[in-house]
C-alpha cells in the first residue's frame, strides 16, 4: 500500500502538526473524526481494511507530537471485536470513539484511561472477554510520563462478553500482542524522529565558543549515528507491518528494537541539549519519559530479545 501509506502519512502528519502534547480531548475527537479507529478493520465490518501498516502510520503520527489518550488500547479492543466477529454493535460503538480500553502490559495492569472507558478487554489464558467497566475497581497509577494515564483494574471474576475461548483465544492473544507491538513501535519511531529533528535544530541554532554547536564534529557524528539507527529501525518497522506472517515474537522483537532506538535518541537529545534538556521547561524530557515507558509496556527488551534469540536458535 505504498501509495496509500504516503497519503495516509501526509494526512496524519497534517492532523497533528502543531505543538507537542496537544489537548487530549481535542486529539481524541480528531482521531475519531479522521476515521483512524476503523482504519485496520475489514471493509465488510464497516472499516477501511488498511491493516497493520495503517496502524503503524497512525501511531507514528501520535508518537511524533506525544499525543495523550487511549488510542493503542482502543485499537486492541477494536481488533479483538473485529477478529471475534458477531459483535457489530460493540464494534461500531468502539470505532465511533466510545472509549474501550485494554491492558498495555499483563493481566489488567496498565490500562489507559480506564476511568473514561465503558469497557475493558480481559485477556486470560484460554479466554478473551470484554467487561463493562461499571462496578470494577480502578486504581490510578501515575507514571513519570504524564502523557499517559494508566490504571490497574481489579475485575474479580467478572466475565462480560466472551470474544474467544480455547485455541481461538490463544491465537487472538498472539494477534493482539503483535498489534500492540506495532502500535508501541510506531509511537517510538514517531517520537524518535521528532526528538532527532528537535536536536539537529537546536545544534544549528545554539552557539558555543563562537560557532554553532552543529559545527562540532564529535556532536555531528553522534547525530549521524542516531539518524542511521533510526533509518534502519524505520525500515524494519515498515517491512514488518507489511509482513502478514509476522507474529507476536517477531513484532515484539521489532518493538524492542524500536524502543531501544527511541531511548538512545531521547537520551542523546538530552545530553546534546545540555542543561536546558534537564529542565521541565524544555520538551526533551517528555520524549525520554515516553521512550522508557514504551520500552516497559507490552513486554520489555529482555523478554522479547530472549524470545527472538530462542526462535533464531531453532530456525
Amino acid at each position, binding site marked *: 500500500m505504498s501509495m496509500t501509506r504516503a497519503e495516509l502519512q501526509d494526512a496524519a502528519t497534517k492532523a497533528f502538526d502543531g505543538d507537542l502534547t496537544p489537548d487530549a480531548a481535542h486529539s481524541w475527537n480528531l482521531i475519531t473524526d479522521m476515521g483512524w479507529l476503523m482504519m485496520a478493520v475489514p471493509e465488510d465490518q464497516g472499516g477501511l481494511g488498511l491493516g497493520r501498516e495503517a496502524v503503524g502510520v497512525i501511531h507514528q503520527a501520535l508518537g511524533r507530537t506525544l499525543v495523550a489518550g487511549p488510542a493503542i488500547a482502543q485499537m486492541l479492543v477494536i481488533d479483538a471485536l473485529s477478529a471475534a466477529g458477531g459483535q457489530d454493535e460493540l464494534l461500531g460503538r468502539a470505532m465511533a470513539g466510545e472509549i474501550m480500553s485494554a491492558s498495555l502490559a499483563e493481566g489488567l495492569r496498565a490500562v489507559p484511561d480506564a476511568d473514561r472507558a465503558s469497557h475493558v478487554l480481559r485477556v486470560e489464558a484460554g479466554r478473551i472477554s470484554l467487561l463493562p467497566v461499571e462496578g470494577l475497581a480502578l486504581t490510578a497509577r501515575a*507514571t*513519570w510520563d504524564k502523557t499517559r494515564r494508566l490504571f490497574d483494574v481489579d475485575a474479580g471474576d467478572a466475565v462480560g462478553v466472551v470474544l474467544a475461548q480455547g485455541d481461538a483465544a490463544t491465537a487472538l492473544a498472539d494477534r493482539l500482542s503483535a498489534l500492540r507491538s506495532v502500535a508501541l513501535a510506531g509511537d517510538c519511531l514517531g517520537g524518535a524522529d521528532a526528538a532527532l529533528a528537535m536536536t539537529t535544530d537546536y545544534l544549528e541554532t545554539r552557539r558555543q*565558543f*563562537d560557532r554553532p554547536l552543529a559545527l562540532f564534529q564529535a556532536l555531528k557524528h553522534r547525530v549521524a549515528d542516531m539518524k542511521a539507527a533510526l533509518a534502519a529501525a524505520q525500515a524494519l518497522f515498515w517491512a514488518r507491518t507489511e509482513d502478514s506472517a509476522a507474529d507476536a515474537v517477531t513484532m515484539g522483537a521489532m518493538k524492542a528494537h524500536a524502543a531501544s532506538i527511541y531511548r538512545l535518541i531521547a537520551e542523546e537529545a538530552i*545530553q546534546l541539549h545540555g542543561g536546558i534538556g*534537564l529542565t521541565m521547561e524544555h520538551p*526533551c524530557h517528555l520524549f*525520554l519519559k515516553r521512550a*522508557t515507558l514504551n520500552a516497559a509496556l507490552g513486554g520489555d527488551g529482555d523478554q522479547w530479545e530472549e524470545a527472538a534469540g530462542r526462535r533464531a536458535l531453532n530456525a
Partner: protein
Amino acid sequence: MSDALDSLRQEVRDWLAVHAPKDWRARSTSEAAFLELQRSWFTTLVKGGYAVPHWPENWPGGGRSLAEQKVIYEELARADTPRLLLSFMSTYHAASTLFEWGSEEQQQRYIPRILEGEIWCQGFSEPGAGSDLAALRTRAERRPSFSGGGDVYVVNGQKLWSTMGQFADQCLLLVRTSSEGVKQAGLTYLLLDLKSPGVTARPIHQIHGDEEFAEIFLDNVEIPVANRLGEEGQGWAVAQSTLSSERGLTLLELSARMRGALWRIGDLIRANGRSEDAGVLRDFGRLASKVDATCAVADQFLANRIAGEERVGDASIVKLAYSRTLREFTSLGLRISGLDAQYHAPITFGGGMETGNWMADFMNSYAWTIAGGSDEVQRNIIAERLLGMPREPKNWVVKEGAA
C-alpha cells in the same frame, strides 16, 4: 596507613556513632525537611569539628591534611550520612576563593558567617554561556552610589544553574565590565548579597522533580565596589580559583557511595526473580567492576594530588569515569525494575544519586554527565590537556571569498 590516620578514623567513627542522623532518608520527603536536615547536620558537624577540615588551620575546624580529609569523607560515606549539599558551595567554593583573593576585611566579614550557616551560591553560567563561560553577558557598570557611600556596580542580566540558589544568602557573581579586547579580560568578580533590591531567584524544575538549581535575575542590582574580589577585569582568574576549589574528595565520596549502593541492584535482581539469569548476573558483575574501577581511579587521583603529582586533565578522567558509571548503574536498575520504575514515586530530597527510585535516579544521573563540565568538555580536556592533542584554534576563520 599511619597510626595517626588510623586513630583519626576511629575518632570520627566513634563520633559518628553518636551524632550521625538516623533514618534521614525516610524523613527527607519534602523540601522543608531536607533543608532542616541539611542545616542541623551542618551545625552538628561544625560543633564536632568535621565540617571544614580543608580550611587553613587558622580557622576553626581547619588545618587537616588531604589524607586526613579523605579519612573523614570515607567515614561520612560509610555511615551513610546526608551529603552536605546546601553548605557545599559555601565551605568549598566561596571559602577557597575568599582565602585566595579576599582582603583581610572581606575574609573576616564572610568566613565566620559560613560556619554560622550562611549559604553561598555561584552565579557563573548564563542562558547563552554554558560550557563557554567567557561568553557571558551579564553587564556591570560602575557609577557613584545614589544612596551615598563609595561607587557601586549596577548589574543587569540572568544567571542559570545556580546550585541551591533559591536558598542562598550570598552569591559568587561573575560579570562583564568591558567588551574590549579578549573576552576573558572583560570579566569582574563580585560578591552579591541576594537580599539586595532587584534580585529574583527562581528554582529550576528538573525533569525528575527536584529543584536543586535556580536561575537568578538581576535587574539594576547595586553591588558596592568593596564587594569585588580581585581587580576589575581580573574576574576570569578569580573564577579559576572557584572552579578548582574542590577537586577529588567529592568524587571519591560519591564513588564510595555508589559502591555502597550496589546492594540495591542485588535486591532488585532477587525481587524480580532474575537471580539465575546469566545475562543479568553478567551485567551486574560487569557493573560492579566498573564501580570498583571508578572508586580506584578516584582514590588514585587523590593519592596523586597528595603526592603533588596531579596532572591537568586527571580530574576530568575521574569525572568522566564517575558520570558514565553512574549512568550504567541507574540504567541497569531501570531495566531490571521494568514497569515498576515507570510509576511515579516521590523523590527523596538530597537523597543522593542512588535512592532506588530508579527512573528518578536515572534522570538525575544526567546531572553528572552535563553539569559541572559536560562529558564532552571533559573529553576535550583529556584529549588536549592530558594527551597533548592539538586544540582547535578558537579563532579559526573562513578565508575571504572561499567556499
